[in-house]
């Protein structure tokens, strides 16, 4: 019976609406009162049934819920024979509930979209070698799976055979599909754009990167801040207080109508729902834009950050060496480049790889009698010539003469923070290559935007030498920069800033910076989606994308102020309603319920604006 009534809440709402319309038609059009009266009475009774059941259930677990207030008010109205009020109040309450469910679903949609991207089935290789579609739960580590074009990669794994492009937006936020070949890592929840892959499952279900992201986002939505816990505690006492107030008013004034009106007006709906709604919409927006925010406490703290401390390598810079400048001391530049590329292609040294990538030479010569000089470079025979590639020490060992021009270039390259690779052919210096860890593109603009958003101190702390650190700081317009810093030095510096009253965010790659990430009010990890940093930090920038940082800061500011607006709307509405019931003549239960339900919808719609948030600057 209970279950049946609650299941048919929507139908009851509709019938109640029809009865109310019938009552008004008969009252105004036909002036026939008995029909109007009976219709309103029936509407009240069927309308209050589900509310009363909910109220009873709440009382059983010692909660004075809004349903309790409304039920008492409606019963009171029935007793004094005001069927119009009782019918309209129950209808508005039920209809409001229906609209709230619809709109709340919208605010949660961003996160639901994310969870719905979780793969549900997989093509698994069976014992006889054939492939069969199975439920995702039936896939175990070590299973071989086939992924067809257009399908979701079902697990985290490694490509065994096949090639294709995979859209990894769900993990990294990166819209450009990534090429995958045997040996490459693929992630659950990403989509194969073309080709066919056979993969071996390495992590399944909740252990996959995608599973962990979902779990984190889901937990974040319901992780409560201090303010929310306060509101929860407050709401626990607030509703009984309203009930008591209504009772006292009734005792003093003997006016049932006034007493039950107070019960309706005092409903705390918008207050208890306002903050969670802003929270879920804000986190949802972040999840869509590659920013994982872990809960409303994080949103609150992050929105007030005035100092940001950055790690250098891998955070402000790309974290891998790239060729910054090439100087050639020969007429036959094409040949020199080919020689250099041919020799470096033999090596897997990071600098060599940077050069090969940069030169992108098509014509490579066969390399003979390669000799790796430890701490120096490579000497080899290419095209019948003796080619030496390495540092200055190797050049002097090879007896290469450095001209004044070359020496000036070397000094300048070093000053700019480059590592040097020199190339000699048959004892003649032919090329000088400067390689350094490049600043990420766009970082300068992003930092300027952070400053505009109110972050006063932008600090760089790095283990690198002071010269390099100063260069980066100057180029990026940072307020402070300190080099030669060990992880514990960084943590000490951070603590010092906090003691001075600053609210500090630390941005790092999460491996060697974990003390600082943990210590800062807000630890922001540049996560490539696989790092453990995802677990230890407060905010994760997916795909290590620095440009998400201004979006993240702006979003938390918008979300925090959205929460404040909702609290003001909720408290303001209750205050105005209570004041007007005492000081005006037009206020009654129905209007009160209308305004009350209206205010709930207003806070939900206000929260929904966050789903569309984009930073302006």
């Amino acid at each position, binding site marked *: 019976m209970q279950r049946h009534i609650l299941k048919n809440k929507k139908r009851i709402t509709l019938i109640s609406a029809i009865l109310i319309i019938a009552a008004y038609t008969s009252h105004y059009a036909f002036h026939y009162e008995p029909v109007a009266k009976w219709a309103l009475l029936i509407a009240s009774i069927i309308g209050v049934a589900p509310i009363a*059941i909910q109220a009873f259930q709440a009382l059983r677990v010692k909660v004075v819920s809004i349903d309790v207030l409304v039920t008492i008010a409606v019963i009171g109205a029935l007793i004094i024979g005001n069927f119009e009020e009782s019918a309209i109040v129950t209808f508005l309450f039920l209809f409001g509930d229906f609209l709230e469910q619809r709109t709340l679903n919208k605010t949660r949609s961003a996160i639901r979209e994310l969870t719905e991207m979780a793969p549900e089935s997989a093509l698994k290789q069976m014992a006889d070698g054939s492939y069969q579609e199975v439920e995702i739960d039936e896939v175990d580590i070590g299973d071989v799976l086939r992924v067809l074009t257009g399908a979701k990669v079902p697990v985290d794994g490694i490509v065994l055979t096949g090639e294709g492009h995979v859209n990894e937006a769900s993990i990294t936020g990166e819209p450009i599909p990534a090429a995958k070949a045997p040996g490459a890592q693929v992630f659950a929840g990403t989509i194969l754009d073309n080709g066919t892959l056979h993969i071996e499952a390495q992590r399944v279900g909740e252990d996959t990167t995608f599973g962990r992201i979902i779990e984190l986002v889901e937990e974040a939505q319901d992780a409560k801040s201090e303010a929310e816990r306060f509101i*929860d505690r407050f709401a626990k006492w607030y509703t009984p207080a309203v009930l008591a107030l209504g009772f006292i008013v009734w005792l003093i004034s003997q006016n049932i109508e006034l007493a039950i009106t107070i019960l309706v007006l005092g409903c705390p709906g918008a207050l208890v729902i306002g903050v*969670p709604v802003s929270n879920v919409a804000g986190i949802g927006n972040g999840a869509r834009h590659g920013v994982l925010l872990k809960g409303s406490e994080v949103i609150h703290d992050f929105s007030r950050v005035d100092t940001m401390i950055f790690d250098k390598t891998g955070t402000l810079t790309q974290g891998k060496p790239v060729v910054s400048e090439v100087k050639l001391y020969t007429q036959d530049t094409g040949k020199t480049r080919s020689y250099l590329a041919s020799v470096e292609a033999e090596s897997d040294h990071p600098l060599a790889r940077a050069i090969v990538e940069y030169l992108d030479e098509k014509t490579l010569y066969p390399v003979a009698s390669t000799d790796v000089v430890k701490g120096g470079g490579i000497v080899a025979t290419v095209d019948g010539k003796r080619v030496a590639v390495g540092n200055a020490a190797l050049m002097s060992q090879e007896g290469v003469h450095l001209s004044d021009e070359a020496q000036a270039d070397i000094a300048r390259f070093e000053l700019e923070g480059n590592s040097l690779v020199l190339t000699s052919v048959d004892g003649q210096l032919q090329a000088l290559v400067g390689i350094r860890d490049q600043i990420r593109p766009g970082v300068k603009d992003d930092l300027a935007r952070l400053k505009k958003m109110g972050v006063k101190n932008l600090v760089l702390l790095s283990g690198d030498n002071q010269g390099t650190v100063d260069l980066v700081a100057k180029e990026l317009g940072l307020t402070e920069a300190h080099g030669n810093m060990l992880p514990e030095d960084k943590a000490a510096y951070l603590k010092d800033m906090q003691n001075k009253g600053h609210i500090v965010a630390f941005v790092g790659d999460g491996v060697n910076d974990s003390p600082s990430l943990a210590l800062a009010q807000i630890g922001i990890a540049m996560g490539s989606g696989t790092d453990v940093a995802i677990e230890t930090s407060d905010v994760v920038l997916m795909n290590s994308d620095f440009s998400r940082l201004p979006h993240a800061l702006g979003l938390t500011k918008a979300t925090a102020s959205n929460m404040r607006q909702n609290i003001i709307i909720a408290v303001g509405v209750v205050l105005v309603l209570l004041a007007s019931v005492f000081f005006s003549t037009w206020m009654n239960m129905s209007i009160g319920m209308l305004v009350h339900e209206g205010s709930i919808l207003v806070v939900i719609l206000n929260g929904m604006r966050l789903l569309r948030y984009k930073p302006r600057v």
Partner: protein
Amino acid sequence: MKKATIQLETLTCPSCMAKIEGALKSLDGIKQDTLSVSFNTSKVKVDFDDSKVAIEDIQKKIGDLGYEVKKTQVKDL
């Protein structure tokens, strides 16, 4: 011991959580400190002793309160 994750229809009022929590705590075999009802995700998570209480009992208890159970996952602990 088993771990249940139960997806409900959209929860609209925070007092729903107190109701569901209160109702489930009254069941025998529920590990009370693992019980969590989350508002935004509309999910119930709980560890329970399957020799004392069946997952169906838990689902029924929630259903009786008027909340529709959409999907249930049970895992061995």
